């Protein structure tokens, strides 16, 4: 019987049925970072447990690292304690740690693929909801809590309920100036922030077939913003080409065997899905959020919703709450909204192609007066490539601050924070209240090129107009 990739991977990794009906699933690859793992190691010590398969866990430090300070100790003693704790845990339990001194440090969802650790047909868990990113390679990858990190460390398995699978096909051709970020924002706006609850999303169709791995990662990354714990793209030649020659990728005869295995992991033609959604690529516009969750988005040419026109009291209340927080006027065009900060980076859009694409447009331009613009490569590797290509210089010349790798202002656990009710044009993934470090700070999510357009004009702008992209 034809099967989906999800079913094949699930069956291959199922260890046994648990008493409550859940399945004990082998977590093939486990990724950890400094924020959600220390308590798990604490629980291990309390229970007297060891790490079952230490070679299957990889660690990095990303959330709390300052992006403008490399030397230690960090100015923030709490951040400093966290990095030291991770170092201690990795060394005590024999876990590979991509520390800053290795040159391989970065956001966990950027370095996994970069190092070739993320591979098709595998299961990947990490104490971070954006673990769905790794699904771009045809892995079943999902975020877990700290108690589950303990479970994975102690047993390399966890208890899980099977997800349903929804195939989301995007066919046709994206219009000029429309990026992977717009595709996922459009999907979330269409299906809702909880539309994916209980599902894994299988992204497919002509648009995904043509997408690079980095574009696929941007989409899979935000699956969780649509409520789907996992999202994946079936592995294909693009996937294999990306993985070839990476530090942890198989080599020689092993490579050919791996590719055959990976190819076989893809969903079979004619397999059954729990749901199928089809989207026409031509319907997707450069998309920006206006509210306080990623499902509250509109095309850049659109206007801020009016609660008076809401369908039902629920929608009215949520629009009112969002507009009060965002200080936006109902019915006003979103274009032209003044910004204070432009943030380029995160596990959604902090990869080489994101900076390359923006560099094409900002060369010879300047960040608008009064705007603080920061560019944060997602990994030391991305930073290095940008330096080799002179991209960092293009950003600096344009008035961006060019920083060291980390999560930075996506969630502002390091010193990069909004102040007061500053409004940020951001390439990150969440526009929740207070997300970027100030309890009243405001976030508008958009693609990297749209962030650049906002940075150089000082307000939310249509990048196609600002940079003269032909749209016909």
């Amino acid at each position, binding site marked *: 019987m034809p099967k989906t990739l999800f079913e094949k991977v699930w069956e291959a990794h199922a260890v046994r049925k648990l008493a*409550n009906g859940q399945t004990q699933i082998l977590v093939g690859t486990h990724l950890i970072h400094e924020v959600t793992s220390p308590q798990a190691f604490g629980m291990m010590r309390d*229970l007297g447990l060891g790490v079952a398969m230490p070679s299957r866990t990889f660690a990095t430090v990303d959330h709390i690292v300052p992006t403008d300070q490399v030397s230690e100790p960090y100015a923030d003693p709490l951040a400093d304690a966290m990095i030291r704790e991770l170092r201690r845990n990795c060394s005590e339990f024999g876990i590979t740690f991509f520390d800053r001194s290795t040159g391989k440090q970065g956001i966990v969802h950027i370095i996994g693929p970069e190092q070739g650790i993320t591979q098709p047909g595998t299961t990947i868990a990490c104490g971070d909801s954006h673990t769905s990113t790794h699904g771009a390679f045809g892995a079943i990858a999902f975020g877990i809590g700290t108690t589950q990190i303990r*479970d994975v460390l102690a047993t390399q398995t966890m208890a899980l309920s099977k997800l349903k699978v929804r195939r989301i096909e995007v066919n046709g051709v994206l219009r000029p100036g429309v990026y992977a970020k717009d595709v996922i924002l459009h999907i979330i706006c269409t299906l809702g922030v909880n539309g994916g609850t209980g599902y894994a999303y299988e992204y497919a169709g002509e648009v995904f077939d043509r997408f690079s791995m980095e574009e696929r990662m941007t989409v899979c990354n935000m699956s969780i913003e649509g409520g789907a714990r996992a999202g994946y793209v079936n592995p294909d030649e693009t996937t294999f080409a990306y993985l070839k020659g990476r530090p942890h990728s198989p080599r020689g005869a092993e490579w050919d065997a791996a590719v055959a295995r990976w190819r076989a992991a893809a969903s079979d033609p004619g397999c059954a899905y729990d749901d199928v959604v089809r989207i026409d690529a031509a319907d997707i516009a450069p998309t920006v959020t206006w509210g306080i969750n990623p499902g509250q988005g509109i095309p850049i040419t659109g206007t801020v919703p009016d609660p008076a026109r809401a369908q039902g009291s629920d929608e009215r209340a*949520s629009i009112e709450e969002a507009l009060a927080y965002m200080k936006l006027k109902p019915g006003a065009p979103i274009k032209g909204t003044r910004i204070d900060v432009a943030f380029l980076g995160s596990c959604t859009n902090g990869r080489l192609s994101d900076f390359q694409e923006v560099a094409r447009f900002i060369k010879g331009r300047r960040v608008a007066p009064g705007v603080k613009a920061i560019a944060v490569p997602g990994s030391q590797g991305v930073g290095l490539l940008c330096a080799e290509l002179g991209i960092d210089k293009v950003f600096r010349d344009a008035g961006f601050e060019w920083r060291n790798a980390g999560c930075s202002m996506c969630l502002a656990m390091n010193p990069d924070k909004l102040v007061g009710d500053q409004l940020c044009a951001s390439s990150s993934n969440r526009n929740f209240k207070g997300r970027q470090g100030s309890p009243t700070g405001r976030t508008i999510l958009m693609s990297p090129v749209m962030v650049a357009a906002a940075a150089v004009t000082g307000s939310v702008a249509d990048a196609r107009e600002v940079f003269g992209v032909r749209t016909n």
Partner: protein
Amino acid sequence: MALEKITRISGRAVHVPGNDIDTDRIIPARYLKCITFDGLGEFLFYDVRKNADGSDKPHPLNDPRHRGATILLTGANFGCGSSREHAPQALQKHGIKAVIAEGFAEIFFGNSIALGMPCLTADRADISRIAAAVEADPDAEVTIDLVTQRVSFAGQTARASLRESARDALLNGRWDPIGELLEGAADARKVASRLRYTGA
């Protein structure tokens, strides 16, 4: 490891209305800078409960009438966003023993059950009825029965259910799966050696 069998939870309730209440709101990221979960309770809903100077904002959890409430009533898609277990930990350390909502985000739900904190789904109309009863009498006792999947309050009852695997785990004292997972260690090793991961 003997765990408590959670069959029934009784206590006063508090209604925190709203849909899509995310984990950043439940516990802002700046309070995740810690290496233990101790003390998270005081930062629960911090930015919606507190002004910049630390004084209280109007919020149901600051209302003295609801002090000591152990059952949280809320809206749809509760706990969406990040996987941080700090969110259910903060609720639990604040004294919350169960949450009744119109729906839960997947990861939050799993994290809560693993801590022995039931998350039950109920219809909006029923949540409104419970909330109204609690508003009328904040001392009203609300009882959640996981066996019958019913909530009783102020002489009324309502249906509140949860996924069978979670209900089974709570009722039978196996909500923390570590013991059972450790029992499967030999099987896990077999599966691991059968699957050819490279470079690990």
